[in-house]
């Protein structure tokens, strides 16, 4: 039983989200297995991004957004409970956004930002190590090692997105949320990021929202299909893409709607 609890990075139960009077998520229950890549797919406006942003409480800042339901981190910590501060939570659950959003600071400062805030390094050399290691894991170190003090916004789009991933893993999260991380990138940069996601799943649980079904099938072990705020089907990627249980899922992945 204990094994069972611990194998889930995040468990959610009966999640509903409203923007004002409009329902965005309707009674979704889904568990995310550890060290897997889970893809959230579905047509635009199906609520998959909203759901993703609930997991690290990024919806908190939107006044009209009301989140209900149960969210458990590692099966025990209530994500919306009083026992955890939102900053501590986000230290454990990192996020990469659709559009690369490096800070207008140097490459080094971008990666060092999180570790500095959370006090992860006591000396400058420790900080240097964290930055170097994170950039290395994001596969960016070789490209930028000679210009760590250059402004990060001068990097290419793909490099910027890998920098954002490096920035996210620099605070050593357990889970990384990715909200369509490749939609603003060209195919080569996309392939690079997909490769990276594949490497990262050794150490992290990754939940990724994607519009590309081929991407979902390439990179993820589990896939969840959302439609109109409801979770239609959730299971192994191979199963979802070959013989889904639900008619709707089949229609979507074969391109009959969406």
């Amino acid at each position, binding site marked *: 039983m204990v094994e069972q609890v611990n194998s889930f990075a995040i468990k959610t139960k009966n999640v509903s989200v409203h923007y004002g009077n409009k329902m965005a998520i309707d009674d979704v229950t889904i568990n995310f297995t550890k060290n897997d890549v889970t893809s959230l797919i579905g047509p635009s406006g199906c609520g998959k991004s909203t759901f993703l942003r609930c997991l*690290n409480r*990024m919806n908190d*800042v939107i*006044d009209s957004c009301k989140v209900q339901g149960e969210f458990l981190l590692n099966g025990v910590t209530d994500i919306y409970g009083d026992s955890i501060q939102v*900053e*501590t*939570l*986000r*230290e454990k659950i*990192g*996020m990469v*956004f659709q*559009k690369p*959003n*490096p*800070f*207008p*600071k140097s490459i080094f400062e971008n990666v060092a*930002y*999180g570790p500095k*805030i*959370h006090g992860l390094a006591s000396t400058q050399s420790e900080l240097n190590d964290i930055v170097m290691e994170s950039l290395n894991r994001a596969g960016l170190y070789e490209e930028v090692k000679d210009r760590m003090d250059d*402004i990060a*916004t001068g990097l290419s789009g793909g490099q910027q997105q890998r920098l*954002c991933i490096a*920035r*996210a893993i620099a*605070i050593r999260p357990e889970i990384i949320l990715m909200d369509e991380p490749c939609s603003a990138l060209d195919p080569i940069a996309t392939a690079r990021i997909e490769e990276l996601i594949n490497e990262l799943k050794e150490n992290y649980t990754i939940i990724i929202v994607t519009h590309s079904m081929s991407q979902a099938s390439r990179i993820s072990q589990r896939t969840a299909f959302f439609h109109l705020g409801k979770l239609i089907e959730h299971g192994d990627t191979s199963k979802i893409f070959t013989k889904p249980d639900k008619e709707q899922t089949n229609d979507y992945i074969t391109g009959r709607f969406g």
Partner: protein
Amino acid sequence: MIYFALLILVIISYLFYYIGKKRALNLKFNGNIKLSSQPDYFGYYVVLMALIPALLMWFGLLLFKGNFQEMFVMSPILFPDISTWSDGKLGLILNKLNNLSVIVNLPLDDLTNGEKSILNMASENELTAAKNLANFDKIYGWSNLTLFIILPIILGFLATRSISGKLNAQPIVEKIITYIIKGSSYIAILITIGIFLSLVFEAINFFRYVNPVDFFFSTGWNPNRAFVVDASEGFDKDDLENAFGFIPLLTGTLLIATVAMIVAIPLGLMSAIYLAEYASKRVRDIAKPIIEILAGIPTVVYGFFAALSLAPFIKDVGESVGLPVSAESALAAGLAMGVMIIPFVSSLSDDVIKAVPQSLRDGSYALGATRSETIKKVILPAALAGIMGSFLLAVSRAIGETMIVVMAASLRANLTFNPLEPATTITTQIVTSLIGDVEFDNPKTLVAFALGLTLFLMTLLLNILAITIVKKYREKYE
């Protein structure tokens, strides 16, 4: 007369627009000719062709009216010694002839006694010249009218006739319009240059009396000493040595501006941060306009607020703790000025903070940063250029502000950095020197231009600095 002509001109333009457009449409539908521009452009084409030469010539006539008058009237035949006259005398005579020309052709019965005596006093040659002048004015008036009405009509018809399938009106019209808008912007620039040059020339006049070194580096400001200067006689330069020392005015200006910035920068910046990052939309929608009202209060109101409420209050408070406070302290003027420029800082800073993309905030929050960490480490650095720009704009406003300091600051130049003492500013002294007896051959008056020029250069420098900083950071952050 001129209004009448202008009205006719407007009517003519309207008519020609329709005539031109009509002819183009006619060619298109009845003549089956393919036009190379939209019909509207042919209308504009005719109007521009009809009006522009007329307006240019009218402007030329206006500009050279005086020269023509002189050429026509002031001939050496009538005035043999004209080449020896000074400009002043020439002007006087021309003035006299102008007056004569109004009455010289009237019947004697219609004249008043005064006018008759003017006629009697004039010499024969002057009367002839006055008659010539009257004729000239008549011709000038008629030629103006011709220009305004007949020339446009002729040109308009010629332009209308020239409309054909081959004429491409659009590029011509667009080119002319481009010249017109280009000209408008040059006019604004030329006026600025003109103002600057007038300052420079009057300042040069001033520096004929006062050594620039004395002006810029001397510490005594006693402009009343300049009363010893008499235009007709010489004066002793030593008298003016310590009369126009700019230094105490500069320190006074900087002192008051510093007090103002000490008030405005923290209050303005913090309210900007509150409005942009913490306030709910409802609070922001109400609070921002209210803060901006501060900038709309007439400065004279701030002036008497500073002079009548703030200054006595500061004096009382100071004296209750045993500090000697002047009734016209720099502190009072500076505080009032600081309140006035709060909105310059807050409103502009709020805009630039709001302009920082939401994605940067999200990025920071997603890394587990708190709101204040995000503001300090991400948002403010990203908005720094704009914030610095707003500071410099506020400083430049503070240095140039006049009414508050005229009312609340002292007139006495006082070389001090103590805000509890009285101090005067550059603008206050400019106002003082141009009030009352104004003589443009006395340094006491002329010093206004030297001060104005210095002030202008100071604010110009600040603006250049602001632009450079903003540019530098923009490059860095883009």
